[in-house]
């Protein structure tokens, strides 16, 4: 210290670096991600460990049951010897589950109808821009009737297949599509009527919409099967599937009308004024200006309603329509397959349904994200 004393008698200040601080905690990379998302606090760590332990006890036995111990080969119940799932059951019952009891040689007709449905749905992507609306809407509206002609077969000179033999997952798909296709325009009419200035038209539409939205769908089906036959003139018998189709269409229309109502509310008044100022008539304004915007705004809800209707077609088994769930129940009570394969059956139907509904829901949330222009979160 003495040699560093300055001439004023005070110690000179010498630069002494303080100890280096540790490097900041990494905020990128796998380790940092783990720390932030799984182990950020003591509670989080405990929760993470608990969940992982839970999954570790659940997943391996499930995996074994589903794949490792499962039985795939064979064609009778006796072939299911392992402890795992009996996929033989699904293999044997696959055709009834998908196509119902439609005759073996005629299944191409169902496949043709499915193909037509997908072609029509995909049409906007390959049709020239000018023709899209006119052609595709016409195709959609004609499709249910074309499909009925093909499946029925009498008009085309094919083997006649009565509706008693239609069934399986294809029937769910057809009934849902046919009622969505007809229910959407009908619902739009009802929604227009609800907005109308005419008091009679408005009250009739309100009653229709509220009735079909407020009644449990099962009660509607019962009305379709118990009460609707009483409404028709004496001696006429209306096919059960046709009655179901009518009920489903009206049900869809009620829900769609409510969806469109939300869409209408999102259209600014300026759109009507602008359309009026260039001299468009009511129907021109509605169909060319308002409808496209309403559909765009309410697309997520339209898809959600379609998913709901598609799921609700399973309720038809209660009134004795041979849709997929009813076929599954039939298979489970078949005297050759009494080994208790309910888990396999429900799992299969559930997965098939889930794939269809999840893809529709995903499209809905994709559109929702794309349309969302707010700057939130």
């Amino acid at each position, binding site marked *: 210290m003495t040699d560093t004393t300055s001439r004023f008698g005070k110690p000179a200040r010498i630069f002494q670096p303080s100890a280096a601080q540790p490097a900041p905690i990494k905020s990128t990379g796998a380790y940092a991600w783990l720390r932030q998302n799984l182990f*950020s606090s003591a509670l989080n760590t405990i929760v993470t460990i608990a969940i992982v332990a839970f999954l570790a006890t659940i997943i391996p036995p499930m995996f074994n049951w589903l794949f490792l111990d499962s039985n795939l080969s064979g064609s009778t119940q006796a072939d299911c010897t392992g402890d795992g799932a009996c996929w033989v059951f699904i293999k044997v019952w696959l055709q009834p589950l998908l196509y119902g009891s439609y005759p073996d040689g005629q299944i191409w007709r169902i496949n043709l109808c499915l193909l037509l449905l997908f072609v029509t749905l995909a049409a906007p992507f390959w049709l020239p821009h000018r023709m899209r609306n006119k052609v595709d809407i016409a195709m959609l509206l004609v499709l249910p009737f074309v499909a009925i002609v093909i499946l029925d077969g009498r008009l085309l000179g094919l083997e006649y297949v009565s509706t008693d033999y239609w069934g399986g997952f294809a029937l769910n798909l057809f009934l849902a599509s046919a009622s969505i296709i007809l229910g959407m325009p009908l619902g739009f009419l009802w929604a227009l009527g609800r907005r109308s200035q005419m008091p009679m038209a408005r009250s009739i539409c309100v009653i229709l919409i509220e009735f079909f939205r407020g009644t449990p769908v099962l009660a509607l089906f019962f009305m379709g099967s118990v009460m609707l036959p009483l409404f028709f003139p004496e001696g006429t018998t209306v096919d059960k599937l046709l009655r179901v189709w009518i009920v489903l269409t009206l049900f869809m229309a009620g829900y769609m009308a409510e969806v469109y109502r939300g869409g209408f509310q999102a259209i600014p008044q300026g759109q009507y004024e602008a359309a009026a100022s260039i001299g468009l008539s009511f129907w021109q304004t509605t169909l060319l200006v308002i409808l496209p915007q309403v559909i765009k705004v309410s697309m997520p809800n339209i898809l959600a309603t379609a998913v709901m209707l598609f799921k609700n077609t399973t309720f038809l088994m*209660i009134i004795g329509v041979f849709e997929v769930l009813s076929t599954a129940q039939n298979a489970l009570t078949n005297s050759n397959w009494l080994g208790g394969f309910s888990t396999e059956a*429900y799992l299969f139907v559930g997965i098939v349904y889930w794939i269809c509904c999840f893809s529709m829901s995903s499209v809905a949330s994709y559109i929702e994200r794309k349309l969302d222009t707010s700057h939130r979160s």
Partner: protein
Amino acid sequence: MTNATSSSAKGQGSAPAFYNNPHNRAIFYQVVLVLVLGYFIYTIINNTLINMEDRGIKTGFDFLTTTAGFDILMSLVEYDASHTYFDTFIVGLLNTILVSIIGIFFATIIGFIMGVAYFSHNWLIRKLSVVYVEIFRNIPLLLQIFFWYFAVLSALPNARNSLSLGEALFLNIRGFYMPKPLEEAGAWVVYAAIVVAIIGTWLFLRFAHKKQDLEGTQLPTFWISLAILFGLPILATLVMGVPFTLEYPELKGFNFRGGITVIPELMALVISLSIYTGAFIAEAVRAGIQSVPKGQTEAARSIGLKEGKIMKLIIVPQAMRVIVPLLNSEYQSLVKNSTLATAIGYPDLFTVFVGTSLNQTGQAIEIVFMTIAVYFAVNMCISFVMNLFNRRVALVERK
């Protein structure tokens, strides 16, 4: 009409022709609509009357006072085969209300937990919530009911090998058994204490609110109200020397006797309804929380609110505005979906009344409309309560 006459009176000469006047057209369209609809309804009624006469179906509500003559699996009020069809209606109605209330209770709990879990800091919990919502929302409810009823609950052991918890709770293929509290003398004091506790909590919360408004001091409202709400009934129970005895279910022969029995049909229905509706409620809660702009959280942080206070005072009140209307429609759809009970034989209104009673009497129109009216009424009640609640959380704009 008034427009047409006034404009022609001004002598502009541009009055539209009579048939082009929108007012006249509207009347014309409506007259046509009413005529068509009237003719349609007339035909239907006419056809129905002819058809019913042909098939020998009686009309009117006389059947309600005749003896039903069938037993019902589960009943909340006294019922046996000698009661009338009106009694079956009441039994079914009560069973529907029971399953709806329990279902709504659990669906709300599951839905809120899963909806909030979407915003957890823990990645696993976030993903768990997404997986839950996406799986159960996209599988038909009927399939889920069947899965729980035929695949899970029928795989339970028989009565002798029941799963049990502390010799009080038993779970087997015949149902779920739990002890039943039987009241003794003095039980009314406990009930009174519960009522007093609820009123006291309400009064205390009002007092605390007023105190904060006047003086700015905050009381620990949560803990104090919790203490009142639970402390008072517990105290009353202890003071009265526990005026309750528990009746335990006991294995006698092949089945359990005593206690409260929850039949497997009810269990399957409640489990599947609450899990299915819970997924939709979780989605509503998520949408509600996401609808609150991030700026709100940031503004709250900048004035120094703690995270818990931000959630309670800033996020939740604003999110509830979005959540409550959605909850309303989810609750209504749960009640409507409870009609699926008929698929597994739970004796709800639909199974008992539209199922068995309709089959026996054949009076489809009366029965179906009575049933539909009930569902409308129940849903209106839900709507009424939720709208009251909505009015409390709705945005109050400056006047």
